[in-house]
């Protein structure tokens, strides 16, 4: 805000400012050129996805297009079974994000609104858990899922099942949500909680009627961030699922890469379709995404 208030310039500093202006112009052009380079790979993939691969085989990558259209897209949707994978993604992402936000906010609520001795310890436990490498956790989780499956009498009870992937995402990302939401809740005045308690509100009412409505902004940011993360997750869906048809789109893409190498442009179309939801985040929900990202890393 303060930068816009320009104090009348002193004459001897004018020259220096002018030099700075020219320098800024150069910096701007330089960053601009790089920005074009940055976006280019995506634009190129998009362009290629609109052309038949046969044309490129015949005339090289720079051959003028004879045929342009969305045929690769319709074929990709059809042959790569993209609707199935998208459904799988939704079945995993939505319940997972819902549970992460719910459980994360519950812990954050308790540790910031009630003074227990173990508050900081709890927060540490959750935040540190979130930072552990997933690989460190995998082997026992895998065996546990199989074991529970055997106990229930259905090997695919958790392993190779949407719920198995959902649970591990929830367990892991809850730590992040707790951390972010608790630092947000600390900024909500204690008086609000105190008056709720004086009014005789139960813990349940206090959470659902008083705190939850106040948490809408961070929940929205966190929700968008979590959707993007879980949507983009590759590792868990790869190791906890064995049936290809059950995999979500991102990890299915890995397999499709191997299967459709004969037609790169078809693959390009597939990748563009897979990128679509994240691009929506980019164009429509960027404020929430960036908000969620920075909320966690810089604390407020």
């Amino acid at each position, binding site marked *: 805000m303060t930068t816009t208030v320009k104090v009348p310039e002193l004459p001897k500093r004018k020259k220096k400012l002018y030099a700075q202006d020219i320098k800024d112009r150069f910096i701007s052009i330089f960053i601009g050129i790089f*920005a074009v380079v940055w976006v280019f790979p995506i634009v190129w993939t998009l362009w290629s996805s609109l052309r038949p691969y046969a044309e490129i085989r015949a005339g090289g990558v720079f051959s003028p297009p004879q045929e342009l259209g969305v045929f690769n897209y319709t074929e990709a949707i059809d042959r790569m079974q993209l609707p199935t994978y998208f459904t799988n993604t939704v079945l995993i992402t939505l319940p997972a994000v819902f549970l992460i936000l719910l459980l994360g906010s519950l812990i954050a609520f308790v540790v910031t609104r009630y003074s227990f001795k173990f508050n900081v310890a709890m927060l540490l436990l959750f*935040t540190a858990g979130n930072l552990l490498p997933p690989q460190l956790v995998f082997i*026992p989780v895998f065996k546990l899922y199989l074991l529970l499956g055997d106990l229930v009498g259905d090997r695919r009870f958790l392993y190779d099942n949407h719920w198995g992937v959902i649970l591990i995402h929830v367990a892991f990302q809850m730590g992040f949500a707790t951390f972010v939401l608790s630092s947000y809740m600390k900024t909500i005045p204690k008086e609000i909680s105190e008056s709720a308690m004086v009014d005789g509100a139960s813990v349940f009412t206090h959470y659902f009627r008083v705190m939850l409505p106040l948490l809408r902004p961070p929940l929205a940011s966190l929700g968008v961030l979590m959707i993007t993360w879980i949507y983009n997750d590759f590792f868990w869906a790869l190791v906890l699922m064995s049936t290809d048809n059950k995999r979500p789109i991102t990890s299915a893409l890995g397999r499709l890469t191997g299967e459709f190498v004969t037609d790169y442009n078809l693959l390009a179309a597939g990748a563009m379709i897979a990128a679509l939801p994240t691009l929506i985040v980019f164009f429509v929900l960027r404020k929430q995404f960036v908000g969620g990202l920075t909320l966690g890393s810089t604390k407020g």
Partner: protein
Amino acid sequence: MSVETAAPSGKQVARRRRFFTRQDKITLGFFIGIPTFLHIALVWFPAIATIGLSFTYWTGIRFEDIQWAGTANYENIFFNTPIFWDAVRNNTIWILWFFFIATPLGVLLAYQIDREIRGHKLYQSAYFLPVVLSLAVTGIIWNFLLRPDGFVNGLLGLPISEAISFFGDERYNIWVIMIMASWRHIGYIMLLYLAGLKAVDGALREAATIDGATEWQTFRKVVFPAMKPVNIIVIVITIIESLRAFDMVYIIYGSSGGLPILGVLVFNNIAGEGASMKGAAYAVILFLLSIVPIITYLQQQFKDDVR
């Protein structure tokens, strides 16, 4: 209001809040219990179990089959698995590259964009774009540019028979991967740093400029020190991301080990046919390497709470 004039100390408030009805106690129990149980059962318990299992031989899921191995798995990795050292080398390159090139570029970019140079909004979007894409999509996109009949080889005018194999040739592959990884990392760091810069008092910077400091001096002497908390987080994220790299390399090379890195090595040893407790040992090594950045991160974030 009259209660407030009595100025209850923190301790008194705490004590007053301990009066819960039975129903409240049950509610609180559930509120804490369910998330904590899930988190411990699926994160902490498995993490500790993996550390224990890394000293054993175990295949299958029957507990009777577990055999004590001592440090055999680790010895195997350190002395009989040359690919481990290749991976260590590649991850080291990864860290150094991110630390000295990608992260500083992201910081610099954030600084310039924060100064609202011409076109800064557009630029910010351009650099932000790769951050939302999954690494799987990123892999496919870059493969498009770099494969034998792709854009770069076309630009160099090389026919397919003489095309440079960017992913296969050992002279290029690690650097190509570094560029791909930076493509995403720079935008990520830029976003984090931008948020931090927004919080720096503009008056500080203005004062420096009025005192005749150059742009570089202002950044180095005023802005950078004021950003200490964000700097620490950025460094930690840089190291953790470099150590955990997995998706992009896996998408391009699969399990082939064409470019060995720790993330893929662990994966190959814990999942699928190669699964053994050597994988657990690998995971523990990965964990030990990332423990310093993890603790640094926690210290930074919790220094106000633990006092």
